[in-house]
């Protein structure tokens, strides 16, 4: 059974469409993170699942039941807001008990559940306090507790860590990860713009941009095999380096030519591509290596050096690219601004993107998968 299923979900305000047909199948008990730049529609999508925004078009199922017209109070969802949204005039206990009181639960049940949740979140000694007497982290835990006591089918988080300071953010992230372990049957959906949160918490990540799903996959899949230029640039820090290249020779392995004239054979299939096509080459900064002049594929002048101890980031202005190339080198490397460096790259880590921005390797893999599992329509390739 799927936890949450979205089928061609659209959202418009007046005549302005902000979500353009979202298809997703989230497994029961799965922890899924929606990530994307601000304004991509990730929060809107979450609020639609919660029932706080109406659905303009498409169908939404929670544990198999169509919920399009089910009001928020009956969807069995619970939500943790960025601003905590605690009721300021109620104690911690009353905050957690509110939903059950509305549902006319018995006093004993309420008491038991509140104490259970308080114990899990180490809030027992604060039950009698008002929210204003709590720290930011404690408030966030109360907000989580308020959601737990309802035993929701779907647990929704809307940027829950954004209002916390850096140290607390790490700690609360670990607590949320523990919570996930403790509630294996509960589907959790988590919205953030922070890719570290996304990578560390998620079973699978949905990358959204401008109201569309760019890619849906596990964190490592997104990192090692981005579907397109957007995901390639969005996931990973520093961002993937992008260089213009020309396809010299297509085939199971492609031969590409840099603007400097140097060529490289990479293990990416390009059978359907015309030779001479313009491509974008993507290479992560850790996949660049220092080399001598002779074997170098890229060379340029160092613009800026960031020495971090365990590694050194160098920003290089190369002839081969308009933008600055960033290389992540292990250890401490003595380099200075203005020095000329020569770089080579690991051919098997190279990504190639066509003019529409799609990754050739990803397309190739999808078509193989589609061949193997013809019965399962691939949701993502529809968008590609």
């Amino acid at each position: 059974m799927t936890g949450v299923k979205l089928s061609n979900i659209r959202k418009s305000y007046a005549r302005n469409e902000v979500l353009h047909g979202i298809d997703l199948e989230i497994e029961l008990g799965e922890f899924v993170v929606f990530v994307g730049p601000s304004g991509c529609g990730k929060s809107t999508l979450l609020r639609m699942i919660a029932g706080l925004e109406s659905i303009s078009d498409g169908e939404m199922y929670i544990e198999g039941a169509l919920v399009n017209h089910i009001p928020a109070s009956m969807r069995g969802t619970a939500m943790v807001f960025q601003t905590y949204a605690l009721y300021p005039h109620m104690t911690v206990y009353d905050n957690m008990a509110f939903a059950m009181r509305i549902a006319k639960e018995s006093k004993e049940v309420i008491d038991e559940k509140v104490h259970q949740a308080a114990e899990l979140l180490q809030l027992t000694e604060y039950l009698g306090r008002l929210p204003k007497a709590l720290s930011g982290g404690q408030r966030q835990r109360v907000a989580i507790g308020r959601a737990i006591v309802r035993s929701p089918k779907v647990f929704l988080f809307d940027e829950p860590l954004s209002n916390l300071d850096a140290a607390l953010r790490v700690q609360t992230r670990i607590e949320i990860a523990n919570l996930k372990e403790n509630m294996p049957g509960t589907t959790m959906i988590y919205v953030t713009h922070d890719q570290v949160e996304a990578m560390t918490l998620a079973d699978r990540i949905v990358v959204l941009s401008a109201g569309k799903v760019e890619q849906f996959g596990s964190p490592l899949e997104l990192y090692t095999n981005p579907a397109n230029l957007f995901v390639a640039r969005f996931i990973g820090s520093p961002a993937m380096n992008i260089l213009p290249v020309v396809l010299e020779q297509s085939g199971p392995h492609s031969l590409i030519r840099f603007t400097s004239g140097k060529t490289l054979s990479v293990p990416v299939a390009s059978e359907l591509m015309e030779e001479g096509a313009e491509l974008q080459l993507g290479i992560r900064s850790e996949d660049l290596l220092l080399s001598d002049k002779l074997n170098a594929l890229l060379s340029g002048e160092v613009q800026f050096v960031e020495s971090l101890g365990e590694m050194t980031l160098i920003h290089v202005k190369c002839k081969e690219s308009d933008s600055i190339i960033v290389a992540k080198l292990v250890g401490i490397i003595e380099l200075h601004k203005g020095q000329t460096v020569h770089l080579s790259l690991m051919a098997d880590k190279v990504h190639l993107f066509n003019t529409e921005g799609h990754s050739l390797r990803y397309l190739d893999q999808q078509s193989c998968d589609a061949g193997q599992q013809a019965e399962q329509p691939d949701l993502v390739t529809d968008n590609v």
Partner: protein
Amino acid sequence: MTHLLSSLVIMLLGVAACGFYFVFSNWLLLRIFPVRRVSLQQQAVNIQRAALIRPWLFLAPALGFLGLYLVYPVVESVRLSLFDRGGDAFVGVANYRWLFASEEFQESLLNNLLWLLVVPACSTFLGLVIAAMTDKVRWGNIAKSLVFMPMAISFIGASIIWKFIYEYRGEGSEQIGLLNAVVEYLGGTAQPWITLHFWNNLFLMVILVWIQTGFAMVILSAALRGIPEETVEAAVLDGANGVQIFFKIMIPQIWSTIAVVWTTITITVLKVFDIVLAMTNGQWKTQVLANMMYDWMFRGGGDFGRGAAIAVIIMVAVIPVMIWNIRQANAQMEGR
């Protein structure tokens, strides 16, 4: 004592009836669209239907009151102003024709104009000056509180206070009115201020200025404090002196608030009635529109046609402010 008790009972009943409406209407709504003990799909439908009706249940009493006590009377007043004294026979614009020919009306209009020029200007100016000065002394809060105090006093109470100040005793006897005592101390002759034509208008206006300055001060003081301190500090660094800072840096930043204060006091002035009624009842050429309207409403059993016509004139004077307000409110809501 029995009256006090019956008053209490009536009070409780009145308040309870109002609370009862809201509780009962919600209970009824939940009876018609139950959310418990029905199928899940039915629940969803019921919740949605109830949510569709509920805002109107919440709004109904308010809309009823607004309609009955404000919207309907505005329309009805306009209609009545075209009818005779009893409101039975249509007389066209006769009431207005009479009004514009009436000396009393011309006098009221002129006086009202004078009030409109003097009171908002004086109150706003004094309020601004006092706000700026009290911000700079440590006991400014106490000073503000005392200047603000007349806001709590009724117009009629204020009239008594000031009538006592303007009190005139015939020549030769000791003056118990503060103003005449001061005048005599300074070597002048005591005057019956309230009956001195033209100047008496100003003496009445002083009362309203005395009341409204506190209001202007509170709002303008908040506006002054809302000015980013950096702009003032930058001006200090640029070498501006205190007066220059006040007029060139601070005042321009609070123009919109000054406008708000000004218009609010203008509206109050248009409605001013109690002060004139209590001090002179329009005698000695101090009549104003609101008091004249009240007068005609009851004079000789009441002339509703003429009274309504005067009310309409006051309304017309208010309309520009009304439109400005609505525009402001709309702009603000869109900004949100």
